[in-house]
């Protein structure tokens, strides 16, 4: 029930905002960016927060999706929808191929390997100028059209990205609360115990890595069609770190926390113009402070605080439920 409640609240907020503030730049443009970042943070959180596998290269998959769409539509005149699918296919294959060797590593080694992967991809984006346009990037990426409806205005994109966000939240939460979701969380808790429960931990790791890459690739393609112009800057190592910061800020293993992290880190630079020059420093600082003082994340800390206050003021303490009989048979 909690699952549905969060989703409904999120939907109400997303619908109410443009009604309360019509034609507002913050709502449409920044709101769209928040939704996009939120989807990316949620996908990274699947891997980092739930499965406990760190990735410092998530922006690479976002980039592969974006560039696949951009190259296929501008240089080969593919239909944008088809190019999104092709981007996901390419990303899926790459993720699948690197997953096994990379995910054998743990902790710092895994962090370094994913970091290396992210850097390699961004170097390729800059160097393979014939395809990628080099540091200048690619422009004139055609807009997306759905059933004859061309998504062009900022508001259209707000609607599309919000819908994607709601859909992803729903799907991810369904997954987390299922056999597969528990298997990937078990990985985080104890790999050896997970194996002993019959979970093939190697394949679960591969699957969640590929799934998280596919989601990133999908929104990468959307991003390319939305912006009509992309350059390697958007997919650099720094963006990977920004995504990690969002996840950590919101609280690992919390889908709504990831949205919260995306919200804060997308709005901050908009509010503080000076922020831009010090962006990376601020992200680094936030990461350090969070790890030291609030490893469970800001969102989760707030959530706990609110529910504690709520309990104290509105509900008397619950009586302890009586122990059930001991003689049920498991067999």
């Amino acid at each position, binding site marked *: 029930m909690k699952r549905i409640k969060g989703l409904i609240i999120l939907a109400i907020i997303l619908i109410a905002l443009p009604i309360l503030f019509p034609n507002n730049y913050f709502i449409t443009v920044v709101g769209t960016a928040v939704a996009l970042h939120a989807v990316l943070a949620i996908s990274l959180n699947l891997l980092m927060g739930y499965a406990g596998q760190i990735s410092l290269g998530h922006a690479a998959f976002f980039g592969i999706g974006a560039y696949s769409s951009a190259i296929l539509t501008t240089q080969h005149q593919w239909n944008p929808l088809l190019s999104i699918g092709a981007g996901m296919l390419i990303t899926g294959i790459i993720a699948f191929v690197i997953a096994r060797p990379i995910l054998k590593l743990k902790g710092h080694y895994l962090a370094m390997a994913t970091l290396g992967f992210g850097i390699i991809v961004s170097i390729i984006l800059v160097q393979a100028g014939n395809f990628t346009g080099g540091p200048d990037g690619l422009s004139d990426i055609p807009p997306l059209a759905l059933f004859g409806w061309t998504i062009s205005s900022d508001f259209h994109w707000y609607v599309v990205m919000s819908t994607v966000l709601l859909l992803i939240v729903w799907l991810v939460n369904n997954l987390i609360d299922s056999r597969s979701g528990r*298997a990937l*969380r078990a990985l985080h*808790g104890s790999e050896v115990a997970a194996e002993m429960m*019959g979970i*093939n931990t190697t394949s679960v790791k591969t699957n969640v890595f590929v799934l998280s890459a596919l989601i990133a690739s999908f929104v990468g393609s959307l991003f390319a069609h939305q912006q009509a112009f992309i350059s390697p800057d958007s997919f650099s190592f720094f963006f990977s770190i920004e995504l990690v910061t969002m996840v950590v800020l919101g609280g690992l293993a919390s889908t709504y926390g990831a949205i919260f992290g995306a919200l804060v880190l997308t709005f901050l630079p908009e509010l503080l113009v000076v922020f831009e020059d010090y962006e990376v420093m601020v992200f680094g600082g936030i990461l350090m402070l969070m790890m030291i003082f609030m490893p469970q994340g800001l969102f989760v800390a707030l959530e706990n605080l609110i529910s504690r206050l709520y309990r104290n003021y509105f509900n008397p303490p619950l009586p302890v439920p009586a122990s059930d009989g001991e003689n049920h048979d498991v067999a």
Partner: protein
Amino acid sequence: MTLLKVEGLLKSFGGVTAIADLDFEVPEGVVYSIIGPNGAGKTTLFNMLSGIYIPDEGSISLNGKDMVGLSPHKIARSGVARTFQNLQIFFNMSVLENVLVGCHLRIKENLISTALRLPMAVREEAKAKQWAIDALNFCGLGEYISSPSDALSYGVLKRMEIARALAMKPSIIMMDEPAAGLNDTETAEMLSLIRRISESGITVLLVEHNMNLVMQVSDRVLVLDYGSRLAEGSTEEIQNNPQVIAAYLGTDTNDGVIGTKTGGSHYAV
């Protein structure tokens, strides 16, 4: 009928021989205990039986099927469950969810219906939840069903690990020192729990230092010393075996403890 058969098993770590040329057979339906001082190789044996370590030599067969070289998740599939000497809890999940992970192999799942939460998936979840609740009740943990797992006492966590293993519906369960660190009341509860598990038809492989418990609950006992077999037999045979008595320094088994009872293995599993 023999359920588990171990022949010529050998495992060494660098210069240390943890298990040396070990043979034993576990008949189906019994409580089979493995005792021996710390460092005797009991946990190493469990790790080989469950596929975590690969033996250097020897064979392990379950129901006549060779198990050596299979990964733990494949061994789990053949009906082997275990608990750990130093707990392996999924602290990021609730008690119920921990035990639901134990139901992993019994749950039928279709990814599409799971992602869209179709009625089929909801029904399967409800069924699994009932299995997990039954396992928790069986272990006397009914009151902890909705607790988070990181706020529970050691004794409760030990029983939760057993509930999680039972949720697999195994044919054999291996318990590594289930009574270690428990007080007298908890130990008595553990004894009755092991009996109930055995009565429900599951073969029990038990590693335990508490001799009172071992002698009360076991059908057969294997005594390990430096990785090899010192003695094997019924509880009376073991209690009257001169070699066993000698090895445990004129042990007065009445105090219920043979061998050292301090600490445990220093290894991860």
